[in-house]
């Protein structure tokens, strides 16, 4: 039974605009926060890993670490916020008939502007450190695209589960803390012992970081096997997320 006959794009646009206005209207620094946060983390990690634990192998340590921080930050932030998006929008779920998928989707997409600003920051620093533009940059939209696909999948999955299990938010936060150490953010992939490397590549977040470093810092195309693993794992997460969400959404009303 279909009782809602609205316009998907219009709803999505309004929900994204809402998230955005709500987040920035009450902040004096507004959008600069999305630049400030990675820059501070970059400075701190650079200080620690060039002064305290010197890591001589990486010559451009600030950019190197930023290649890891930006994709990680996007996932951690969007995943965390997205996990509670259904519970936070109880009113919408229980009192309006529009398609529920719009809520997690809007939640992820409203973080994408952050991501775009941070990507601009990253590319600027890459160039400022004397790296040129190369044709492999054409891979970048695919890499970022799969990151968004992966994040959507995670948010669909955990957003739906958090209706039934309210501790989900803390599970996600804890996972992100673990992920910060298990993704090669402040250490190079080459430092990982050989027999762990294959497993690492199946972690899509690690795959994104690796691909970025190949493209931006080493002027080499990311290996096909890496891209395929990235594509497969993020699409798999999206499919699982959609299936779970679809099954779970019928009962949202009863549990919220």
């Amino acid at each position, binding site marked *: *039974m*279909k*009782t*809602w*006959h*609205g*316009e998907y*794009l*219009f*709803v999505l*646009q*309004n*929900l994204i*605009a*809402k998230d955005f*206005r*709500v987040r920035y*209207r*009450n902040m004096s620094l507004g959008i600069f926060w999305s630049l400030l946060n990675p820059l501070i983390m970059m400075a701190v990690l650079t200080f620690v890993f060039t002064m305290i634990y010197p890591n001589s192998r990486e010559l451009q340590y600030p950019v190197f670490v930023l290649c890891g921080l930006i994709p990680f930050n996007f996932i951690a932030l969007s995943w965390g916020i997205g996990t509670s998006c259904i519970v936070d929008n109880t*009113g*919408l*779920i*229980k*009192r*309006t*008939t*529009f398609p529920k998928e719009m809520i997690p989707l809007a939640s992820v997409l409203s973080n994408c502007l952050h991501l775009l600003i941070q990507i601009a920051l990253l590319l600027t620093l890459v160039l400022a450190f004397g790296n040129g533009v190369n044709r492999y940059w054409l891979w970048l939209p695919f890499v970022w695209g799969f990151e968004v696909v992966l994040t959507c999948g995670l948010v669909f999955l955990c957003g739906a589960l958090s*209706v*039934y*299990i*309210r*501790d*989900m938010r803390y*599970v996600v936060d804890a996972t992100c803390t673990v992920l910060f150490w298990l993704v090669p953010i402040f250490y190079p992939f080459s430092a990982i012992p050989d027999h762990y490397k294959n497993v690492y590549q199946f972690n899509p977040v690690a795959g994104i970081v690796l691909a970025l470093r190949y493209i931006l810092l080493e002027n080499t195309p990311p290996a096909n096997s890496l891209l395929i693993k990235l594509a497969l794992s993020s699409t798999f997460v999206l499919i699982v997320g959609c299936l779970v969400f679809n099954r779970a959404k*019928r*009962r949202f*009303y*009863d*549990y*919220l």
Partner: protein
Amino acid sequence: MKSISVIGVSKSFAHRGPGLLREQLGAWLSAPRRKAPFYALTDVSFEIDRGESVAVVGANGSGKSTLLSLVCGLTPPDTGLVHVDGRVAALLDLGSGLHFDLTGAENLRLNASLVGLSRQRTDTLFGEIVEFSELGEFINEPLRTYSTGMVMRLTFSVAMHVDPDVLIVDEVLAVGDQAFQQKCFAKMMSFRRAGHTLLVVSHSGAMLREICSRALWLDHGNLVHDGEVNSVLDLYEHRRLTTALH
């Protein structure tokens, strides 16, 4: 032509609500302990023809809002069938789908998109909706500066412009002032005259007698009376009076 069919519908809610991770894990591991569910509606059946306007009355917790939610398709029934023909606009709650940090105008667009107006229709109707709401300059102020009545004016004005086949209203009019209530009555009457279907929950008998032709009386989830509005309301009000005296 049937507009709404509700056939043998029951709806229960388990008493537990959302679980904690610990309980959920426990539930998976051990045999499920079944607690008796709470039945919000038991075996309710009725049909509403296109163009009818129907009131739903009953005490608090008698299942009125659950019934409306089922008709809107927000939640599936345990057993039975719910079928609604055509576009539905529902006013179930004040303020759901609104954000208090956004201005009236921003909320208006958001709310319009959620209830199913297209971008084009929203742009065309924007002025008309603002005018109907009589919010004037306040439309550009954040919603947190609004009174409850003003929030109601905004939501109601949007819902009245969806041009739905079925309009469902759950006790929200009570917060409006007399003048705006009159305006809403008038709008609902013209809506009814245009041949659309109306389903209204309210505790204001006078208003229901004015705009509805038929009434459903719910008592503890059972449909106890279904008939002409005045006769059902007379019975209902008599019962309320006698239980209040005892």
